[in-house]
């Protein structure tokens, strides 16, 4: 059996932070990237956002992790080399890579610009690439990626605060569009005010919605309204508040990934209202059927977005001055950041300053 030797697998040396086992502790890791193919873009990673999914994955909470695991799918940087058939990018361009680095490119989903729903979609990390090798993510110094899965970061967006948009941003932007919750004047609820939620508020406001944040933490009310621009705030555990708000929302984007009751959320919806889940609790939730029927309501899901839409989202963000609220950290702080993230102690996304702080030795 040929042992997997990450350092020798590919010709380009790379350095990053990897989890070795489900303890999730990240440590320095030497590996390698493939040579820049005809359609590939190679870039120096400047920043990488820490997504809550990274935390789930380093600890193998979804049972799909393989080790060593280099997380990171909110990656931004500067192009250093492009393959001979690359048309969209040139050296020096500011680019980003999100949650996917490949797909089949021929199924209906791929043809319709929703590569994220391709059954053969390849994740940016802990996935298996077309050449059979494991993919490693953005907690690393260099990325090589097929140009189709690279987006341009508009000049108007600062690289560090734009990084989280590559996952958190598209995760909220896509369902607001798909489920028709992007019409001016409609009333949208956002459940959870974390990495996803705070970006969701900004996008929904920019699309012209009235926004209510729904949260278990009363302490977040001031931030929600004064800092993120929400119009109102509901404490989900406060029965009276929830009762008074019944039947007021056209749609809700629920970012919470812990198991939680959705019946009260369905009650907040007007007739024809839509509850969209973007967090994925591991256990099934209770679905009360009567209110779904009596109000012709729906409960749907959404998972990131396609490449075309991801670019569209970044351009929209640039136009409306939307970035994530971030805490930039050095690479050696990453394990502490993960611990704080687990407790929800971050406003609202950690971003690793890779270029300045991720160094060998």
């Amino acid at each position, binding site marked *: 059996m040929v042992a997997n030797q990450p350092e020798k697998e590919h010709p380009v040396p790379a350095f990053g932070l990897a989890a070795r086992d489900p303890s999730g502790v990240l440590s320095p890791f030497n590996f390698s990237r493939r040579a820049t193919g005809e359609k590939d873009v190679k870039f120096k990673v400047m920043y990488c956002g820490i997504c809550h999914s990274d935390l789930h994955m380093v600890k193998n909470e979804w049972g799909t992790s393989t080790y060593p695991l280099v997380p990171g799918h909110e990656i931004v940087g500067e192009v250093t080399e492009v393959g001979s058939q690359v048309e969209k990018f040139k050296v020096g361009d500011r680019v980003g890579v999100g949650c996917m680095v490949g797909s089949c490119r021929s199924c209906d*989903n791929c043809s319709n610009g*929703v590569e994220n*729903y391709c*059954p053969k979609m390849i994740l940016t990390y802990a996935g298996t690439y077309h050449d059979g090798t494991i993919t490693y993510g953005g907690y690393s110094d260099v990325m090589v990626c097929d140009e189709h899965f690279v987006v341009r970061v508009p000049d108007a967006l600062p690289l560090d605060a734009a990084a989280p948009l590559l996952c958190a941003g598209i995760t909220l932007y896509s369902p607001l569009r*798909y489920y028709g919750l992007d019409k001016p004047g409609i009333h949208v609820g956002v459940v959870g005010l974390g990495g996803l939620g705070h970006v969701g508020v900004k996008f929904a406001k920019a699309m012209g919605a009235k926004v209510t944040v729904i949260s278990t933490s009363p302490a977040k009310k001031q931030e929600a309204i004064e800092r993120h621009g929400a119009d109102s705030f509901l404490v989900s555990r406060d029965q009276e508040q929830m009762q008074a708000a019944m039947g007021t929302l056209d749609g809700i984007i629920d970012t919470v990934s812990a198991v939680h009751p*959705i*019946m009260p959320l369905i009650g907040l919806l007007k*007739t*024809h209202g839509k509850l969209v*889940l*973007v*967090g*994925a*609790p*591991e256990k*099934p*939730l*209770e*679905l*009360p*059927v*009567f*209110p*779904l*029927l*009596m*109000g*012709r*309501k*729906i*409960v*749907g*899901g*959404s*998972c990131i977005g396609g490449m075309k839409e991801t670019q569209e989202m970044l351009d929209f963000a640039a136009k409306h001055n939307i970035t994530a609220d971030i805490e930039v950290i050095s690479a050696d702080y990453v394990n502490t950041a993960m611990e704080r993230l687990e407790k929800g102690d971050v406003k609202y996304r950690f971003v690793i300053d890779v270029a300045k702080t991720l160094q060998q030795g």
Partner: protein
Amino acid sequence: MAKSPETEHPQKAFGWAARDSSGVLSPFNFSRRENGDEDVTIKIHFCGICHSDLHAIKNEWGFAHYPMVPGHEIVGIVMKSGKNVEKFREGDRVGVGVMVGSCMSCDYCNQDLENYCPKMIFTYNSVYHDGTANYGGYSDMIVVDQHFVVRIPDAMPFDAGAPLLCAGVTVYSPMKYYGMTEPGKHLGIVGLGGLGHVAVKIAKAFGLKVTVISHSPGKETEAVDRLGADGFLVSSDPLKIKAAFGSMDYIIDTVSSVHALTPLLALLKPNGKLITLGLPDKPLELPIFPLVLGRKLVGGSDIGGMKETQEMLDFCAKHNITADVEVIPMDQVNVAMARLAKSDVRYRFVIDVANSLSK
């Protein structure tokens, strides 16, 4: 002191009612209001037995009022029409479905969505604008506001058309609303009962490919050979179900008992829609991963508006669609209910009211 059902209104009426949550139906003398300016008085010829009638008479949903005369798949002939009624005249073949009133002024009513009006009034087990109890179609006559009466197309037989007034519109409406009418797309229909069998017929008329999903292997021949379904899956056959994963654009779920949604969601392609029409008495378990990873959705739907109900009847008449019925006399209604509880009917009982309802 409250008036009795018999004396409440000026027109005498007779029907069968449940007295308590045993659900046993028995003869019941009551009365109907005078035929108002907007009303039509209908001599009832047939009334379908909907599974909801069974849930209602046994108070399975917890809001029963007794005595309860069920029945909301009503067809009959107009005997009287009020002076403001232009759409109908004596002798017309008409039907009444699940609603007899709404506020007629809210956004929903103004958009022909009376079924979603917060003040919508059910045909039975409800209270009318005048504060009196509503009694349904297991009875000899009914007085209804013209807005809530539909015409039964000449081409459509009375007895086999009656179930369309609930079962028909209940499956037609979501097919239109959720965009499930594109020819060539693949629709799964869960449950081959009153709703399911009508859904197969309507779906085929829309040009869809149809697969019936049922827990009864015995229904395959019926589904495919007689009703025209393209395929059949036994829900308890995990291998066949697995082989069909990711093959359906939409699913209509007609099952009203608690059941698993996970395999149904897996049958959908990405962006697929699972529309549930049954009303189980407990919540269902909804797995979230498949919704998120495949951008799938679960939606509900509740009958249809009046305009849509007429549209559905005209569509069915054009495509020769009726329900498959077993006509029974009124005095067999309790036996029918017991059989319905065991799903022993192909596929709707219809009470021959005019010929069998006698005091």
